[in-house]
């Protein structure tokens, strides 16, 4: 793009406008700065050029609006919903808006946004202000043309009018508008005035998806590109000793077999790693080929000897270790109110239960892959990664390039679920291309993807509660995890603040298995454990399980404790909505309900699962969901996210079984690893709490309550509590069915 020289800035909105040489007006702004809660303003704003922005709005002479979003889509719909917010305040028709994913590189786009549950929440104010400011500049330009006061002009659907009945389209004033001062204080619309926000807007990439256009990393191709397949150790904790590539090299299409590992390892040794680099401690054997099939076939033809210098871990060991951690005294206190031990000693009754979750692979539908082209002058990277800025900086550091010489383009992602936060595949691609000095794409087979993953940590929770005079007086939760504990604010979620004596402690064992974030990290299993436990408490107290939650929530309403993350009132409203919509307690014979509610990612969610029995086995028929995520920007996208989250939660709670034996993963592909499929899928009915509060995340919060709702419904049907996942295993092991 070419710009005229005169540029205008807004300090407050961090926005800049310019006339486009080819016609039209360009507004540059920073989506990520906009999307961080306490973004720092760059010191020297006057000296910014357009390369310092990462998002643009172009308004053409014809009044068409193009929003260039740097926002990669991982399936959460933000590529649609964020532009909707801009268009709303800009007052243009959605049909005149085109959303384009900007070509991204870390040189020109310093601040990239990786999407996720938080994008909308952080972007809400800034996106609205960007739209409103731009609209005001257009209105101001029209007012000057007409020589009237801008206050007497209105803008609607891309057309500006005044009280004399004159009309100007946005396109007719762009040149003038671009040169005006950027107004600092613009008025934002009221929720009741919205015409785009709240409409059902179909995913902006829909046409490309349904016609099979190249969108994803795996679809990316470049001139002269080779394909690489990487042989990694079969067991976690092993290292490469030697290999024989004779057979592999005979495979038609295989060009070369090399090893990599040094670059990442040196980087790790220099102390710059984070622990997900565990995957990178060994050398790896790489088959380079002219096509994917040859690369995969060549890898199969390799033989390698692996050595072990640490103990190879098994799930059985982990199980014992986790119990030991729970029993031990060395825990970190994460939150403590009152005195739980006193409460337990004075209690009428004390209940204690332990819950267990396995490791889980992410299994993004699009296996990990990345393109790299390392030349003497620069490095170009292309593919699906959720942390582009970090990945590019590691590559620069690792290969000794100036960060300015490393560019990274993001593609659409065939699922993320947390896996693509980790750039191990980016570093591999870069190291390979660096070695062969050719453009190359690293491709994981499903087996590679599942067996060399970054898994959800395996966790045990032990929860203990005291009951005195029919009230819950104490609550003590201990977490033991292999590979990382709950983070930050989670100990301040429900029931923190509801129970006078409350304590959360965590303990960790760090082993050989690489672990990391998995959709709704920690809460994905914590919510199941706690919500199952509360269901059991309600039975003990002989009170309705929903009523127990509502009673407890009264204690946190109006709390002065700023550390409490959720709202007692919003949770109560959400629970009441689901209770009403699901006809709680009024189902027909043979239908069993289970309730669960959880706050995470700033969103309050309550779910009621309904199951029926078929040959004594529970079949999940329906899940009714109530969600308070503030203003719903795009209802169809929002429901899609919640539906997906709920089913993801159910699928993994019911079926996902994954373990290790001598460091080796139990499953390699979908023949043995069971994901939820169509015939196991219940209907999901989503209801939103209506309010005018700022929107919050949706990609994750639907998931955590789902497992608990199903577990509690299973108990209602069979009188059997679920204490570990997957439930199918618990059910098959149970005497009920035998």
């Amino acid at each position, binding site marked *: 793009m070419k710009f005229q020289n005169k540029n205008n800035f807004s300090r407050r909105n961090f926005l800049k406008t310019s006339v486009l040489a080819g016609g039209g007006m360009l507004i540059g702004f920073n989506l990520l700065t906009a999307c961080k809660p306490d973004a720092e303003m760059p010191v020297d704003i006057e000296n910014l050029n357009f390369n310092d922005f990462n998002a643009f709005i172009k308004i053409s002479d014809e009044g068409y609006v193009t929003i260039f979003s740097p926002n990669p889509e991982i399936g959460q719909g933000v590529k649609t919903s964020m532009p909707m917010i801009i268009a709303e305040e800009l007052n243009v028709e959605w049909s005149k808006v085109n959303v384009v994913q900007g070509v991204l590189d870390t040189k020109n786009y310093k601040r990239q946004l990786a999407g996720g549950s938080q994008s909308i929440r952080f972007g809400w104010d800034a996106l609205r202000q960007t739209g409103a400011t731009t609209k005001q500049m257009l209105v101001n330009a029209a007012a000057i043309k007409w020589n009237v006061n801008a206050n007497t002009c209105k803008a609607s659907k891309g057309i500006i009018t005044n009280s004399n009945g004159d009309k100007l389209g946005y396109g007719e004033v762009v040149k003038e508008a671009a040169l005006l001062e950027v107004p600092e204080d613009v008025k934002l619309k009221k929720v009741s005035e919205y015409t785009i926000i709240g409409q059902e807007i179909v995913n902006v990439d829909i046409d490309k998806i349904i016609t099979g*256009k190249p*969108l994803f990393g795996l679809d990316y191709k470049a001139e002269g590109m080779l394909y690489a397949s990487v042989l990694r150790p079969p067991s976690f904790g092993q290292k490469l000793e030697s290999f024989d590539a004779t057979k592999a090299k005979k495979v038609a299409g295989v060009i070369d077999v090399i090893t990599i590992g040094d670059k990442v390892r040196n980087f790790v040794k220099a102390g710059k790693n984070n622990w997900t680099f565990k995957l990178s401690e060994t050398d790896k054997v790489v088959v380079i080929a002219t096509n994917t099939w040859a690369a995969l076939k060549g890898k199969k033809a390799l033989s390698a000897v692996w050595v072990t210098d640490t103990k190879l871990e098994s799930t059985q060991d982990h199980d014992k270790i986790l119990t030991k951690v729970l029993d031990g005294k060395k825990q970190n206190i994460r939150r403590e109110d009152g005195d739980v031990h006193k409460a337990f000693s004075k209690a009428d009754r004390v209940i204690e239960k332990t819950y267990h979750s396995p490791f889980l692979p992410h299994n993004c539908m*699009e296996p990990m892959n990345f393109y790299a082209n390392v030349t003497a002058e620069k490095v170009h990277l292309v593919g699906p990664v959720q942390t582009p800025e970090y990945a590019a900086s590691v590559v620069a550091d690792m290969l000794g390039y100036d960060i300015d010489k490393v560019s990274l383009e993001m593609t659409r992602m065939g699922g993320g*679920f947390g896996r693509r936060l980790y750039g191990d595949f980016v570093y591999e691609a870069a190291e390979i291309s660096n070695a062969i000095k050719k453009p190359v794409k690293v491709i994981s087979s*499903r087996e590679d993807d599942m067996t060399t993953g970054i898994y959800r940590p395996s966790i045990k929770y032990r929860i203990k509660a005291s009951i005195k005079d029919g009230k819950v007086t104490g609550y003590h939760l201990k977490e033991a995890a292999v590979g990382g504990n709950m983070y930050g604010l989670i100990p301040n979620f429900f029931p923190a603040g509801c129970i006078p004596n409350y304590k959360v402690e965590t303990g960790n064992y760090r082993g050989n298995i690489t672990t990391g974030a998995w959709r709704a990290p920690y809460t994905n299993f914590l919510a199941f454990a706690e919500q199952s436990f509360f269901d059991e408490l309600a039975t003990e107290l002989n009170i309705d399980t929903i009523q127990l939650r509502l009673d407890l929530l009264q204690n946190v309403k109006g709390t002065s404790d700023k550390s409490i993350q959720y709202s007692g009132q919003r949770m109560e409203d959400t629970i009441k909505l689901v209770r009403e919509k699901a006809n709680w307690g009024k189902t027909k014979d043979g239908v069993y309900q289970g309730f669960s509610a959880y706050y995470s990612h700033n969103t309050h969610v309550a779910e009621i699962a309904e199951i029926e029995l078929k040959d004594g086995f529970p079949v999940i028929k329906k899940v009714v969901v109530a969600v308070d995520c503030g203003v719903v920007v795009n209802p169809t996208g929002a429901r*899609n996210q919640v*539906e*997906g989250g709920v089913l993801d939660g159910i699928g993994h709670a019911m079926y996902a079984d994954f373990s290790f034996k001598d460091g080796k993963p139990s499953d390699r592909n*979908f023949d043995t690893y069971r994901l939820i499929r169509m015939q196991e*899928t219940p209907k999901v009915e989503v209801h939103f709490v209506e309010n005018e509060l700022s929107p919050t995340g949706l990609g994750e919060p639907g998931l955590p309550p789902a497992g608990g709702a199903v577990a509690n419904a299973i108990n209602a049907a069979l009188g059997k509590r679920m204490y570990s996942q997957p439930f199918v295993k618990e059910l098959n092991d149970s005497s009920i069915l035998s």
Partner: protein
Amino acid sequence: MPNYTLYINGKERSVTADADTPLLWILRDELNLVGTKFGCGIAQCGACTVHIDGVAIRSCQMQVSILDDVKITTIEGLSADGKHPVQEAWKEIDVPQCGYCQSGQIMTASAFLEENKNPSEEEIREAMHGNICRCASYNRIEKAVKVAADKMS
């Protein structure tokens, strides 16, 4: 390497490839038809579904050497303009989340609806059971197949 002539989306295409190369990789790597996706490589996920003589088949299991006298249709050739009733229904219902599995879903659904013009809910769920959607857009897939069936009848 041997040469093969394939009939894909109404056109003859000639490729040079190893005899055991799956159609999936011929499409993606040699012919630039990347709408057909790789998910598992072992016939478990359906991401690679294409039509062979109108039947939904997993292209990761079809060796190029046995495909000389069949008609292959991929997502790119399902309709000239993206307006096959199944595609239209997918758009109407706003099915995709990440979108990666969806061409396979659409190919499975469109072959199924040729066979069964008026499917019951059970039949739809059975027909689509073999296609994994990791984002679990199953509720919408089911709805969209129903909508497409209505459009086609």
